[in-house]
């Protein structure tokens, strides 16, 4: 290989030690940790309010949450996490092969958010609103913040997917996006168990 001036170029390997954790992944991990504490606080507040409720839970006059239907949605979200994990493995071997599983994971993630939107319209029609009771307030706050994280993660995954399609997706960037999605997926079973049951 030669430079424009005709001087042969030498490939010099970087003598500096490589970090154990790429900066993008470290940054995302710190963000995920702070978000984990946010959800821990919300779930703790919900648990205390629920335990202190003298009239039972859900309070009289408030609808029961559709736990069975949401179980299907939970499976879809867990499946998207598993498929994205497969996409990560495929990306490590050959970048382009991650494209299809990544798209499938995105579709499952979109299904989760859309299903939840439909569920909210049903609950609103049954009288469960943000101001109808503590039950409604906690439900929309916790599930809503989780849904917001889902939408943000889907946006990040879509951005990563487009970069993958053009062949400019760095492994560390993809890893950071995956860490965020794993957090969203991993958190959901805990929320589902505490809020829906």
């Amino acid at each position, binding site marked *: 290989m030669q430079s424009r001036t005709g001087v042969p170029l030498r490939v010099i390997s970087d003598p500096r030690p490589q970090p154990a954790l790429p900066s993008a992944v470290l940054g995302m991990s710190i963000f995920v940790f702070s978000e984990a504490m946010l959800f821990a606080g919300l779930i703790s507040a919900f648990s205390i309010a629920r*335990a202190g409720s003298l009239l039972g839970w859900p309070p009289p006059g408030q609808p029961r949450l559709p736990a069975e239907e949401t179980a299907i949605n939970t499976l879809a979200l867990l499946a998207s996490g598993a498929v994205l994990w497969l996409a990560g493995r495929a990306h490590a071997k050959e970048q382009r092969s991650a494209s299809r599983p990544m798209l499938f994971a995105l579709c499952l993630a979109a299904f989760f958010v859309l299903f939840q939107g439909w569920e909210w319209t049903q609950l609103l029609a049954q009288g469960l609103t943000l101001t109808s009771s503590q039950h409604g307030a906690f439900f929309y706050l916790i599930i809503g913040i989780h849904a917001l994280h889902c939408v943000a993660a889907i946006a990040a995954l879509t951005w990563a997917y487009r970069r993958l399609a053009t062949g400019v997706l760095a492994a560390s960037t993809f890893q950071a996006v995956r860490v965020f999605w794993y957090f969203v997926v991993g958190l959901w079973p805990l929320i589902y168990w505490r809020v829906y049951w």
Partner: protein
Amino acid sequence: MSARLTALAAFAAASVPAQQALACAVCFSGRDESRIAYLLTTIFMTAIPVIALGVGIYWVVKKATAGDGAKTH
């Protein structure tokens, strides 16, 4: 010496009604469910940062050790 004894006696005297101080206006509840919820959520909120830091440190050390091992071969 007498000052120390006086301080100790004052401390002992102050400790007698300390049981009442456990009834914190914020987190005390007459219901067992509430008290258990407070206890469990306190453990939960305390454990998360400790576990997260532990896992993070373990992971970085493991990765760094694997890197050193790869260099020596």
